[in-house]
């Protein structure tokens, strides 16, 4: 309040002193809160991983099972990303451009994965695809394994990351409006041409930002893949987060801390990098 627009008159001396001190007090409070709540844990993880030097961290990350776990996380996230890039865009489009009965409820439901516990998500999928699940006769007949295998883990990750694309694209689509699309249609463009040449370029930053949020969330998913993947047993259903959990369980702290640090860094770079990129593009 005080520094932005110094008022020429009216403000008497005692009031301005009080303002200066309340300003210092409030900024100090917020900085201390954030330092204790967010920065201290962050720094302590870096310290915990590198306490015995850089060598052990590299050795811990360079194990075949760790690399395989990170690889599995990456390709599961990749599949999720492709499906949401298509499906999320279609849903955002329909929710913004179409009007239909039950739209408000459906629009509210999109945020459900945000609040439903990941454990419950994994359990829902077990009820559908598990050994005694609803779909188990079909799956046995077709010889498809979903639970305790990668398709189940992809489905679980798809559920928890559902809102991000839709929630990023919705406002951008709304703000872009329909005028340019209508102009393109008047000039004879087909629906597909209009989308590809007019709408998509206009919403591309929302699109990319939605993708990075989806990816960051997918990389870190734990509870749902733990349940549908069949717990921590290592092997073919172990993702990066499941590895971290197993390493903690086996009291391999350097391994757990190193992998946690790496996973956190990847997500952080993704989100912060795309945020900076987007801001620069907007400024240009």
């Amino acid at each position, binding site marked *: 309040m005080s520094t932005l627009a110094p008022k020429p008159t009216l403000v008497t001396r005692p009031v301005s002193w009080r303002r200066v001190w309340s*300003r210092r007090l409030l900024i100090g409070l917020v900085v201390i809160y954030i330092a204790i709540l967010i920065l201290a844990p962050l720094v302590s993880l870096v310290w915990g991983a590198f306490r015995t030097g850089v060598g052990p961290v590299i050795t811990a990350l360079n194990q075949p099972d760790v690399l395989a776990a990170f690889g599995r996380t990456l390709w599961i996230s990749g599949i999720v990303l492709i499906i949401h890039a298509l499906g999320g865009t279609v849903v955002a*489009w*329909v929710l913004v451009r179409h009007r239909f009965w039950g739209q408000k409820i459906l629009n509210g439901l999109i945020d459900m994965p945000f609040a439903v516990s990941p454990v419950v998500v994994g359990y829902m999928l077990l009820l559908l695809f598990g050994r005694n699940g609803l779909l188990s006769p079909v799956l046995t007949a077709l010889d498809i394994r979903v639970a305790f295998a990668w398709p189940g883990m992809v489905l679980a990750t798809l559920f928890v990351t559902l809102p991000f694309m839709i929630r990023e694209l919705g406002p951008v689509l709304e703000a872009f409006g329909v005028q340019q699309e209508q102009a393109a249609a008047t000039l004879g463009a087909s629906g597909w041409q209009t989308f590809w040449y007019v709408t998509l370029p206009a919403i591309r930053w929302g699109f990319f930002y939605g993708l990075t949020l989806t990816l960051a969330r997918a990389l870190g998913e734990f509870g749902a893949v733990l349940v549908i993947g069949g717990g921590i047993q290592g092997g073919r259903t172990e993702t990066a987060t499941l590895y971290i959990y197993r390493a903690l369980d086996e009291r391999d702290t350097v391994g757990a801390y190193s992998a946690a640090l790496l996973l956190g860094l990847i997500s*952080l770079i993704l989100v912060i990098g795309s945020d900076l990129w987007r801001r620069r593009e907007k400024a240009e």
Partner: protein
Amino acid sequence: MSTLAAARPAPRPPVPWGRWGIRGVAFTYLAVLLIIPLMVILRDGLREGGGELIRQVTLPIAWHALKLSLWTAGVMTIINAIMGLLTAYVLVRYRFPGHGLLNAIVDLPLAIPTLVTGVMLVVLYGPQQALGSWLRDEWGIRVIFAPPGIILALLFITFPFVVRSVQPVLLALDQTQEDAAATLGATGLTIFRRIILPPLILPLISGALLSFARAIGEFGSIVIVAGNIPFYSQTAAVYVLGEVESENRLGASAVSIVMVAIAFSLILLVDWLQRRINN
């Protein structure tokens, strides 16, 4: 599905096959990924009837886990509402060195996997760590494997929600009213209470409810910091995991259904609040 819209005349002359097709794709996608899984849990939880559901939920161990989830989330929500409002105020109204950095740090918890958050807190407050053992020996405070750890983890994860909900509304406030009040002799606190706070109430409630909803089901960080001590630090999500692993389908479904119902009502409430704020 498309018949719902058939009562209205199609807006454009050619039959809008593409329009219906795309709507069908969107509905199918949402049905498969979202609605069907949610319906399945509902069906399974009510399979044995409402009485059995209530019996399973009120088992002492399940009931304690649910209560723990609710009260830790409640304490977190109160702290988060106060500190989130303060942070938003400082970020919007003051300029100081490091302002941009502080603004960026607010979003940090969204980028960090919650399991990693749990690991961080264990490294900082764990019983074998310097700070953790000091807190326990000198002050008698146990953080890890205890409720304070749960609250800390929830505070970390939900920190952006209140800030990012209040910030845009505060930014759009017209400051001439505050100037007028100041000219008339109102003190800073009166101005805040009478002029700044009222328009912020709705976004504040919306952000706080969102963090509460997010916190009820939190698992990744909780399972690391709280462990799994029944009647002490076992939250509802951790309880469900235990019941799934021991193949107690009734217990797992019953507690799951309560959690889904809480999430559902809160999400619809927040959605309604958001629409009121935007209008």
